[in-house]
């Protein structure tokens, strides 16, 4: 005959195991849903031949508000639009790595990059339209410096990869958007230039008329 207290203990343990199992299952389901929501993206076309090439990434640092050009080996598609999109995804993925100097939440950031002829002047090159995902914009750190560094990082990287493009405009989920995360304007177009920058200190000479 099993004593009563042992039966109670047994069934209590079984109940605890079942409750913990249910809790674990629910947590897994929620994490799965979250990952699916972030990765709900059409796949990027696989690079032909899977050969890597050297690209220049303009990486930002929050500590000193600098943008530094570095090179990396990346496998990219041949199509210019897909190439720009893959390059920007690779760039922004660097900021999601642990120890990043400009931390941004991981996840897909760029929906599309369109390269269009410049309607104003054909001699000025093409226009790149970067369609960002709202999940990226919603989770981007809010602040003048943080948003400016992200934009300058994208602009510099596109400038190095697509020299025929003269300016870039930004959309969010296909729609015009006022700011990236409340500060840096996305309503204007930006000229594609070398955005390598170091922190600028104020000077006495620059205060005089």
């Amino acid at each position, binding site marked *: 005959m099993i004593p009563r207290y042992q039966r109670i203990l047994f069934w209590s343990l079984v109940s605890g195991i079942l409750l913990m199992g249910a809790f674990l299952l629910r947590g897994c389901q929620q994490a799965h849903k979250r990952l699916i929501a972030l990765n709900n993206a059409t796949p990027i076309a696989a690079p032909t031949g899977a050969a890597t090439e050297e690209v220049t990434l303009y990486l930002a640092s929050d*500590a000193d508000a600098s943008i530094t050009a570095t090179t990396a080996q990346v496998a990219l598609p041949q199509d210019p639009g897909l190439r720009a999109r893959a390059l920007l995804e690779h760039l922004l993925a660097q900021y999601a790595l642990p120890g990043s100097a400009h931390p941004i939440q991981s996840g897909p950031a760029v929906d599309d990059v369109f390269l269009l002829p410049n309607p104003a002047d054909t001699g000025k090159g093409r226009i790149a339209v970067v369609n960002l995902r709202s999940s990226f914009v919603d989770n981007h750190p809010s602040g003048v410096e943080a948003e400016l560094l992200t934009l300058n990082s994208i602009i510099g990287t596109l400038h190095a990869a697509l020299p025929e493009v003269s300016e870039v405009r930004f959309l969010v989920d296909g729609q015009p958007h006022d700011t990236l995360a*409340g500060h840096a304007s996305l309503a204007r177009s930006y000229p594609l230039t070398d955005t390598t920058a170091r922190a600028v200190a*104020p000077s006495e000479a620059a205060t005089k008329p």
Partner: protein
Amino acid sequence: MIQRPSPNALAASLLLLAAVPCSGAQTPAASAPPTATAPTQAAPQPAAPAPPRTLPAFYRNLILLDPAHGGSDTGAHLPDNATEKGVTLSFAQRLRPIIAAQGFTVVSTRDTDPPADLPADQRAGTANHVRPLACILLHATATGSGVHIASSALAPLEDAAAAPRALPWQTAQAASLPMSLRLANEIGLALQNAHLPVVLLGASVPPIDNLICPAVAIELAPSSDTPVTDATYQQHIAEAIASALASFRTHNAPPPAATPAPIPPPAPKPIPPAAAPAPSTATPGAPK
């Protein structure tokens, strides 16, 4: 005989010169249309239509503060459950009396948390209407360190003197960008002298590109372990900004009395006695 202008006529000419718009710093009192006229010898003419009242380029003792965000737009979420809209408003309220102590009149785009959002265009409209010496846009963030001072990222006009009278709304700041850069450097130097880390940036932060006044966006970021909500930290920054604004006024908008006297116009040719009576007798106060 060469006639020298009488003191009264010279004073009236100076008053007319001081009321010319866009000629530099002016006080609100100086913007009123001149009432004194130079004495003339000519016969009374039919009254000409009064010229339109000219407004000064800016009021040298007026500062505009724009605490960013407000309403449902909370801005960045800061540590200790603080929001950017609350920090910018409290900092503006801290900054206001310190700037006023330097002899400025301070106008703010908002003094409370409004029930509805304040659009960037409305903020710019307020700033452009009051014509301040400087527009200060206040922000706060949890990233970076020190104080970030941003001026517009627009390209400055190549020839500011030839700027059209009607400025495009999206690039209105381009005409004032050189003064905005000087203002950013003034504030940066004052913060550096207060041993606060400073970063100068060029960024298009709405509504900075739509402002016609010298404008900078000042973003408060944590300094080492000091959060942006720290009262002492905010006080140091506010005092540095106020002293920088006073210095900016001294360098770029000296008081009218301190401006160098204009070169007097060349003396008029004497009129032959046969054509007109001797003017020396008709000009009161002329040196003999």
